[in-house]
């Protein structure tokens, strides 16, 4: 299975061990063991329906695995509700974006920095200033400063993608799980997107991306994991995996015997 241990990347941040999830007879995730190491970009690839998004859901607490263990920095997070997991520093984006459609761009970013559930945020004026600065920095980094008062639903396609990223950026998450974040972007936006990701990684963020487009994958991966029919088939160095003919066959639809 995986020729692991050629470890580029730092400590293991998020680890799924032997997780499985079945939906009505269909094994969506089948005994997957998968680790995300700090400071690198890992991509999760595989044909449609391979279970990639489900794996994300299992690792972030949106779904409960039927078996297996999920560890964050060595501690189990299986019992934690997904909002607490998010507050640990795990951020995610969604394939269908799930923007807060009727709120403005600024509000979308602002609300992510406000974690408290009560009527006012803890921390007083200094915390408020810090949040404001964070919002400004995020808007600047994602190029959305001019659009701050636009409603999310009125944004153009590329701007929505960047807003989705902005939310994670503003949340201060240490690990980003991105689900097809760059699909459909024009080349210019795509370059901007990638350079933003690389900059974040330089500043200490760890990223895991579900991506379909193998060209994109080639451009940014430090590590690749290949999923098919719920099983982790291969994991490791991008060059090795991308040049494996068996995996290519699976990816492009011809099933090996």
């Amino acid at each position, binding site marked *: 299975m995986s020729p692991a241990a050629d470890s580029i990347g730092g400590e293991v941040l998020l680890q799924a061990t032997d997780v499985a999830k079945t939906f009505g007879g269909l094994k969506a995730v089948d005994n997957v063991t998968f680790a995300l190491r700090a400071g690198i970009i890992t991509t999760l690839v595989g044909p449609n329906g391979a279970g990639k998004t489900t794996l994300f859901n299992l690792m*972030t607490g949106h779904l409960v695995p039927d078996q297996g263990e999920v560890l964050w920095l060595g501690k189990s997070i299986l019992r934690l509700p997904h909002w607490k997991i998010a507050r640990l520093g795990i951020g995610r984006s969604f394939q269908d974006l*799930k923007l807060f459609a009727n709120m403005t761009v600024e509000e979308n970013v602002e*609300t992510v920095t406000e974690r408290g559930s009560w009527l006012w945020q803890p921390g007083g004026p200094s915390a408020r200033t810090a949040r404001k600065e964070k919002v400004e920095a995020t808007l600047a980094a994602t190029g959305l400063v001019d659009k701050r008062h636009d409603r999310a639903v009125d944004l153009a396609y590329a701007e929505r993608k960047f807003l989705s990223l902005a939310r994670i950026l503003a949340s201060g998450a240490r690990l980003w799980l991105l689900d097809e974040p760059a699909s459909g972007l024009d080349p210019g936006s795509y370059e901007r997107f990638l350079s933003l990701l690389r900059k974040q990684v330089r500043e200490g963020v760890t990223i895991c991306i579900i991506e379909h487009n193998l060209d994109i994958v080639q451009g940014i991966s430090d590590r690749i994991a290949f999923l098919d029919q719920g099983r982790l088939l291969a994991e490791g160095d991008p060059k090795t995996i991308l040049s494996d003919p068996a995996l290519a066959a699976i990816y492009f639809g011809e099933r090996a015997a």
Partner: protein
Amino acid sequence: MWAYIVNLAVLISINAILAVTLNFILGYAGIFSIAHALFFGVGAYTATFVAMKLGADFLLSTAAGMAVGALISLALALPALRVRGEYFVAASLGLQMLAITVFTEWKSVTGGIGGLTNIPPARILGFEVTKPEHFLVLSLTCLVLIILIIRALVRSSFGRSLKAIRDDETAAWAYGKNVAIIKTTAVVLSSALCAVGGSLYAFYLSFINVESFTLDTSVQLMAMVIIGGTATLFGPVVGTILILLLPAGLSYLPYLPPTEIGSIQQIAYGLAMVLLMIYRPGGLWGFQEKPKAKEGGAP
């Protein structure tokens, strides 16, 4: 004529309080409750109880109503909010129907079907409010205060959290918001403020009975909010005015049999609700949305 207008104005302001507080959870948080009339009733009955037993001090009675309303809403919110929104509607429906039976049967507190009469006039800061004009000042003041409170809430971080939950609950969870607590807080606030309307109602009419707190009332409140425009501060007020003015307006039409006016009023806002839902492209939130794009947006 003047008395008629003042009376209408008081009723409008009281109902506006109910509509505005319902909109707080419906329009801003996306929580659909058909139990709002029950909190209206709780406020009214509690305030009356306190007024009859401890003297008709408006502030005390209203505070009592708010407290009891908040407590009961906790009973509804805490368990029911754990489940999906659709179930919350059903739970609120169940609670509303249950409340009607309680209001009708708990004769010692609610006076049963006959209701409670001879409620003493409200006393506020030593001043006894007997004239309708004075009451109008009181009810309008309450309305304005409540609108200001809700405005402050909506513009705060709490308000943003509510709107985020409304727009996409899954994403709200994913960004670290404890959706259950936030929703519960919203429901408690909404119910407590709604009870203020109940207290005003009891003192104004000096008489309350269960007929005012039924499912029909809850539905009418919902119609006020929806027709007036959700997720806006004054939308519910507009909706209230429209719906309360409707029977008055209808009675001027010559060929309508007066016995049918109630029915026609209901048909009118039933129709308004249906047509709004079909033709307003963006749905409920008071915005004009573009036709459904492939990603983002729709809850």
